[in-house]
Every structure is written in structure tokens, then in C-alpha cells.
């Protein structure tokens, strides 16, 4: 069994049934979804967006979901695996009838479960029975969170039925030895429990109208009870950190100042990593500032169906995160780097916010539906983000000139970069990307990179982005439409009629690559500096702000911290390579949770005691585990 296990473990690592649930910035990697179950979950997710992206719904069934291990989409998969009729579903999609699509898709999954259960009951060979039960169980996963939310007793009854069903399949033994026969009576009884529930809740002729599409059983939906299904992301979503992880360059740290001596900055660092400052669903999904801006930079892999048009892009004013802020425009943006943030204002791709503080508040309250942050939170976040520095680059002088370390091609490109062109209004690239001003001019220009949203629109001006660090932030432009720096050069050459030769374009590209380069762009992990050690160090630094907050009896901000850090510490323990030390980290997380519990109970003595214990235990772990 280690083979099966390791296959799953190393292909997908830790698995969760749905990407949802606990408050944590460390998401669980998913077990692969079966194609039709994935298509169903995508349909539910996309069906709740407004305007509803019908093209994406169609693609959810016709194409493999993003990252799927299966090479075919659900429809082709069903063609080979199933006799279930997909026409009613396709008709409903073609007719753009949301309720009908929900009904047909739900019945299709329920029928597939029944089909596999029929196959299991009919089969004689244990391997085939087990495979059919496993498939049926994998499909049932599409409904599982809805049942658990609506009817925990039924969820338990069904969970036991699946266990009984699997236990009663019999075993072929090992090479014939130790074979056991199937227990048909138990098998049929367990199947009856599952089929009975499906018939009543997922194979019904007329589903109750759904305001929100979800996997809730029909009896629950029809009851009108308010039932909250924990938010989840659909298959194909990717909210994991970029790998390799960008290197974080903090100004104070480079000067040898300890973050624990900067409590406001440390608290801001915690908030940057906290999903608690956002509203649901971002909060419940564990999304934080750092989810998109890994280590102050970008996350090139982030992808959420319906909100991302490509990896590393997201529409934060769509229907998913905060419906009240839904601008009903499908306009995902390439995630910008926050390196050197104090030099890169105004903020937003179009520079619509002059103030970083206002921009940040808009992110928290409007884009992600969080409560109004306190002035202390805003001060802390801004204080922290203003410490983000550009990556050191030995090919550049502080005033933006190439050094001797730069390649010759880049030096030739530097001359082109500084040459005025008629197509640029007799300006040069350097006119806007000013070398001694961190390669930006803090102004917005319409360079023709934005298609007019309507006739006569004058809304195409975008804030000049810095070129520093850009070798690691592909793709480029506000919408990520250009995949490489060479493509950017080609775009300007063609649209601005620069008339560059092939060699000149290559030289200019080499210059951009030299300007955008860094001596160490990524965090270097090894057996000493592990990902867990980094996380542990960060989290204990966050906690250090309790030294400031506890004496101030600042319950609100203490609880925000303990709720964030205790959960993250426990979650991050799952990434430890030193598995034997995990229980200690769980204990430490509990200790921090105790601080929160005591503060909630207004028992400040107990809070101080737990905090003191936390510090000594954290030190001991630091010494032992590392």
C-alpha cells in the first residue's frame, strides 16, 4: 500500500476532499477530481458568478480542468466510461438556463454514482468491484460538503454506508492467498442507504429553485432553511505559493534591524499574511495579501476559474470575492509586484490611488469584503509594506546605469533605451522608465495597450511600471498579454514603428533583462533553511508583537493575531520535514490559542502566563528542531 500512498502523496501531497474550510493560509493540496465531478463543481462555482460566464461552463465539460491528470474533458471521459446521456445537460447549457443546468448536472452526477454502484453489485471480481466503489465514492465527493452542511446525521450515515460498502467488496488476497468473498447482504444494504438518499435529494425531477448553486441536498434547499455551505474553490484552482519562492528584501532587515524590535512592522507583516482581515469567501479560503503577492512579489501560478484568465492574474472586482463590489466587467489583471512599493506610487495598475493607505483599505474592504480596518491595522500594514525593497542587482548602479557586470548586448541595448524615437513622440523608453528614478515616472500614460471599453473611451492610461525585478515577473502589461520581455520589445517596435533591426531588438531585450535581473531572486532553501523554518520564524516574529499588545490590553488586535498565527502555526506544521517534531509545534499553536482564549475571557494574568510559556517553548523548539 505504500506504493498507492506515496503515489498519491508525492503527486498531490496532502489531500483534502474540497479546497475549503478551516481558516488557514496553508491550503491543502487536493486529491485529483474525477473529470465529471470536477466539471460539476466548476459548474456550481461559475453558475454563481454574475454575469454568468457561459463559455466557461461549456468548457468545464468539454475540456480537461486546469491541472487535471486526465487528458480528456468530462464529456469525452463520459463517452468512454459511461452510458449516461449528456444531451439534456448540453441542451441546458446551450439554452443558458441556469436552473436547468444545475438540475441536469446534478442528476448526471447522481446517475453516474448509481451506474458505478450497479457495476459494483454486478461484478464478480473483487478488483473490479473495488474500482467501481472507489469511482462511485469519488463522484459522491461532488455532493459531500453540501450534505455535511445541511444534514450532519445523514452525512455520517452515508459515510458509514460507504465504509460498509467498501468493506464488503471482498478481497482477491495476495496472489490468491488470503482471498475473502464479497458480503452481498451488507453490500446491498449499504448501497440502499446511498441510493435512497440520492433518489430523494439528487435524482429528483423538480429541484427547488436555487438562488445560489451548491451541492446542498434538495430536501434542505426546499426547506428554505438558511444553510451555509463552507466556501470552496473549484477544481483547477491554484492558490499555492509560487515555486521557487521569491526572495523578500526588507529594508530594515538588510540593515541588521530585528523585526521583533519593530512591533508595528511585525504586526503589519502578520496582517499581510492574515486571511482574517478579509471577508468571506477570501477569509474562509485562507487568502491573504501574501497569497497573490508572495514575499512582496507576485504569484505567477495563482489561478481561480472564472476570476483568472491565465495564471498570475485575477479579477478582484468580480462576483466571487465581494458581490457588492462586482463591477460586472471581465477584466482580470496581472498581479503586480510590490517590491520597492514606497517608490512606485500612485497605486493600482492605472494609478487611481495616490495613497497607499487608501489603496490598501480599498483592497481589504471593497475588493475582499473585509470589515473596516482600524487605524492601527492600516498603520501597521503600510509600515510593513513600505519596507519592501527592490532586489539587489550588481548589474545596475544605484542611479540605474549598467555596471561592468552587465553583458555587452545589454550595454548596446542601453543606448537604444535612451534614444528618442518619433514613434514615441520624440521620447525614449527612458523618458518614462527613468533610470535614476527606479525606472518609472509615477505617471499614467495611454500607450495603446488597453482596448477602448466603449466608443470614445479615454480610459486606457496605465501607471508606468518599474522595470526592476521584471526578469522574474512575467507575463507583462496590465493584462499579462505579453509573455516575455522580448515580446514587450516587439510590441513597442511594431506598434510605435521604432524600426529596430532584429539585432537591436535583441540588444534592447538584453538590456531589459539586465535591468530586471537580481543577484538572488529566490529564497534558497536547503536542509538548514527549510520552508518550515522560514514559516516558523515568521510566525514567532508575528507573535512577538504580543509583547507590545498585552501590556496595552489591546484585545481586538491580540485576537486578530492569535487567531491568525495559532491556526497558521498548526497548519504549517504539516510542511515540516522533521515529522517527529510536529507534536511540539501543535502544542505551541495551542499555547498561542490559549492566549486568545484568556483574552476573550478577560483573564489577562492567564494570557500573560500562556504568552510567557509560548516564548520559552518556541525558543526550545528553535534550538532542538533546527
Amino acid at each position, binding site marked *: 500500500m505504500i506504493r498507492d500512498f506515496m503515489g498519491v502523496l*508525492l503527486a498531490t501531497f496532502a489531500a483534502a476532499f474540497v479546497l475549503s474550510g478551516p481558516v488557514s493560509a496553508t491550503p491543502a493540496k487536493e486529491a485529483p477530481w474525477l473529470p465529471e465531478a470536477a466539471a460539476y463543481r466548476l459548474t456550481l462555482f461559475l453558475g454563481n458568478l454574475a454575469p454568468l460566464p457561459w463559455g466557461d461552463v461549456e468548457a468545464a465539460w468539454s475540456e480537461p480542468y486546469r491541472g487535471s*491528470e486526465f487528458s480528456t474533458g468530462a464529456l469525452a471521459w463520459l463517452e468512454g466510461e459511461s452510458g449516461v446521456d449528456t444531451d439534456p445537460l448540453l441542451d441546458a447549457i446551450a439554452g443558458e438556463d441556469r436552473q436547468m443546468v444545475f438540475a441536469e448536472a446534478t442528476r448526471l452526477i447522481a446517475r453516474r454514482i448509481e451506474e458505478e454502484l450497479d457495476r459494483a453489485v454486478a461484478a464478480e471480481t473483487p478488483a473490479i468491484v*473495488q474500482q467501481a466503489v472507489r469511482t462511485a465514492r469519488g463522484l459522491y465527493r461532488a455532493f459531500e460538503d453540501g450534505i455535511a452542511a445541511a444534514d450532519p446525521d445523514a452525512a455520517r450515515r452515508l459515510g458509514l454506508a460507504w465504509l460498509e460498502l467498501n468493506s464488503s467488496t471482498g478481497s*482477491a488476497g495476495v496472489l490468491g492467498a488470503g482471498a475473502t468473498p464479497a458480503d452481498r447482504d451488507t453490500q446491498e444494504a449499504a448501497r440502499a442507504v446511498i441510493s435512497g438518499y440520492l433518489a430523494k435529494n439528487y435524482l429528483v425531477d423538480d429541484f427547488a429553485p436555487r438562488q445560489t448553486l451548491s451541492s446542498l441536498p434538495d430536501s434542505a434547499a426546499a426547506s428554505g432553511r438558511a444553510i451555509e455551505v463552507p466556501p470552496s474553490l473549484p477544481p483547477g484552482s491554484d492558490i499555492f505559493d509560487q515555486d521557487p519562492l521569491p526572495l523578500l528584501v526588507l529594508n530594515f532587515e538588510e540593515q541588521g534591524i530585528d523585526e521583533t524590535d519593530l512591533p508595528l512592522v511585525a504586526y503589519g507583516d502578520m496582517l499581510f499574511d492574515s486571511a482574517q482581515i478579509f471577508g468571506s469567501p477570501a477569509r474562509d479560503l485562507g487568502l491573504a495579501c501574501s497569497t497573490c503577492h508572495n514575499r512582496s512579489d507576485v504569484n505567477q501560478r495563482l489561478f481561480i476559474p472564472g476570476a483568472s484568465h491565465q495564471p498570475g492574474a485575477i479579477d478582484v472586482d468580480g462576483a466571487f470575492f465581494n458581490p457588492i463590489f462586482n463591477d460586472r466587467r471581465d477584466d482580470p489583471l496581472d498581479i503586480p509586484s510590490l517590491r520597492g512599493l514606497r517608490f512606485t506610487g500612485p497605486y493600482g495598475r492605472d494609478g487611481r490611488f495616490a495613497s497607499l493607505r487608501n489603496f490598501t483599505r480599498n483592497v481589504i474592504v471593497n475588493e475582499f469584503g473585509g470589515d473596516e480596518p482600524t487605524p492601527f491595522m492600516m498603520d501597521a500594514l503600510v509600515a510593513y509594506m513600505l519596507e519592501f525593497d527592490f532586489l539587489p542587482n550588481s548589474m545596475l548602479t544605484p542611479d540605474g546605469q549598467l555596471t561592468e557586470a552587465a553583458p555587452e548586448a545589454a550595454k548596446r541595448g542601453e543606448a537604444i533605451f535612451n534614444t528618442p524615437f518619433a514613434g514615441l513622440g520624440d521620447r525614449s523608453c527612458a523618458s518614462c522608465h527613468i533610470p535614476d528614478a527606479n525606472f518609472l515616472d509615477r505617471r499614467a500614460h495611454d500607450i495603446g495597450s488597453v482596448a477602448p471599453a466603449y466608443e470614445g473611451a479615454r480610459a486606457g492610461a496605465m501607471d508606468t511600471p518599474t522595470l526592476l525585478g521584471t526578469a522574474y515577473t512575467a507575463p507583462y502589461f496590465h493584462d499579462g498579454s505579453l509573455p516575455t520581455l522580448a515580446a514587450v520589445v516587439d510590441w513597442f517596435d511594431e506598434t510605435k514603428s521604432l524600426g529596430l533591426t532584429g539585432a537591436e531588438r535583441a540588444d534592447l531585450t538584453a538590456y531589459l533583462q539586465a535591468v530586471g535581473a537580481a543577484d538572488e531572486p529566490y529564497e534558497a532553501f536547503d536542509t538548514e533553511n527549510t520552508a518550515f523554518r522560514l514559516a516558523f520564524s515568521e510566525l514567532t516574529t508575528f507573535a512577538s508583537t504580543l509583547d507590545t499588545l498585552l501590556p496595552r490590553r489591546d484585545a481586538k488586535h491580540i485576537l486578530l493575531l492569535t487567531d491568525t498565527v495559532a491556526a497558521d502555526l498548526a497548519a*504549517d506544521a*504539516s510542511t515540516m520535514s522533521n515529522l517527529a517534531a510536529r507534536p511540539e509545534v501543535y502544542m505551541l499553536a495551542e499555547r498561542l490559542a490559549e492566549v486568545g482564549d484568556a483574552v476573550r475571557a478577560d483573564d489577562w494574568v492567564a494570557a500573560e502566563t500562556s504568552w510567557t510559556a509560548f516564548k520559552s517553548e518556541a525558543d526550545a523548539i528553535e534550538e532542538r528542531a533546527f
Partner: protein
Amino acid sequence: MAIHLNRRTMLALAGAGVVSLATPLAAQDTALRLAFIPQENPEKLLGDIEAITGWLACEIGVPVEGFVTIDHAAAVEALRNGDADISFMGALPFVLAEAEIGAVPLLSEVYRDAPSYTGRIFVRRDSGIDALADLRGRDIAFADPISESGYLYPLAEFVEAGLVEGPGQAEAFFGRIFFAGGYQQAMQAMAEGLVDAAGASQYADLLLTPQQQAEVTWIAESAPIPSHLVIARPGLDAALRDRFVDAMLRLNEPEHRNKLRYLYGPDGYVRADGAAYDGVRDMARQYGLLR
């Protein structure tokens, strides 16, 4: 991937023999045929086989074919009748195959620096269950009745503790015993409270969500179980066998480690030590699987 293989096709083909993925190479008299045991998604395995056999062919200098069998028994049968030269195999089926057809152990998989692992009994931390004896009359989920770490070895801990008389007597101690179908299913059943305990691999808690991982612990650990291995049919040309083993050991080198993911994802391989499987042989005898 060029090949779409659905489950029924695979089983039908497997029943008939093999799903073959020959590596295109200049025709030679000698070819090496590798049998793979299917995973949950056989389609992915086929892609993996294409990748690894291609590399092995270049390294060994003979064409290498890979095919998926329906189960361990079919792989052993393929070794017996010469349809396969090499097979990937679990420890328990290996000792049976050794007894039955004289299969030869070549390589053992390495996980976290060891060619062995253990089975554990996991419980929820808030369950109040601290010792194996606390599970009297309680429900437990194991992975599979023929799983070393997901049944046989964890159950042996109850025998060792004097709580279960022997194989086949477990029903008298526990409330209900389930075979959940895999580590993850057994662990999930325990974490969700459907059962009180789960018997699974020492690493199986990593299959839970990070939140769930913090909520579970383990109360007993089995003796080391030698890891899965790569075995050969008896009579395989010794020189060819050695070249295969040498090539596989090169997977431990940094430049080739990325290919391990095509092979069930171990951290590496070491030469197999047949004596390391004595415990499995004893276990197989205790359970009446080996005479």
C-alpha cells in the same frame, strides 16, 4: 498524452495480458519488459511509463517496454511466463512471488532516508483514547485486508499487546472493523469521527488537511516494514539485470531525481537486501499467506 485509456479498456487488456508501451529504438534482440501495478489513475501511469522507459532505454542501451497489469498477481504471472522481466512490487506480494516463482529482489524504494516505513494506529486527539486497550469495543478503519502498513502490521501491535489473540480474532476485540479502501479513506473516516481509530502508514496523516493533521495523533507504531521493491524474474540475463539496476540507481543522482516521480515517487532506490524481508515472510506465515 497520446493514449487515452479508459478503465474498462485497461482491465480488458490487462486481463488479456498487457497494455504495452514500447520505446521506439533500433531493433535489437534483447528488450527489457517492465510490469507496473496500477494506481488510481491508470491514464497518468501510462504517461509516466512512457517517460521512464524512454530514459531507461537510453541508459541501458536496449529497448524497454512498460505495461500495466491488473494487480500484483498478474504481474507475478507475467514474470513467471516471461511476459515481464522486471516488476514493481509490494513487500508482501514479493515474498509470496519469491516462494512461488523464485522472484529476485533487485531494488528497494527509499522514503525519507529509509528503505522501510511503519504502520501506525491513529486517533483523534480529543478522543480520550491513549492506548490500544482503550479501543476495546470501539470501531476502527484499516486501509485494506492485504495492506502491510494499513492492516497486517498495525493489527500485529494489538496481538503483541495481548489484546487480539491472533489473525482472524480481531472481531472479538473491536466493535466494528472496516476496510476503507486506502490510507486516505481510513484516515478521513477517523478524522471525521465515523470510526474511533485508523490503521495506516506512518505518513498517512499527511493525507489529511493541515487542520485535520493538527487534530489527530497516533498511539502505536509497528515494527519497520521493508518498503516496496523492484524484482526480477529468475533467469533474467545477469548482465542485463545489472545494467538495469545501475541505471535505476542513477535516479538517485541530482540530475535524474526528477524522474523518480514517474516511478511511484520514492525519494530514491537502494539495492534490495533480501534478508530485510524476513519479517514480512514471518508475518505472511502468521496470517496463513505463506507456508
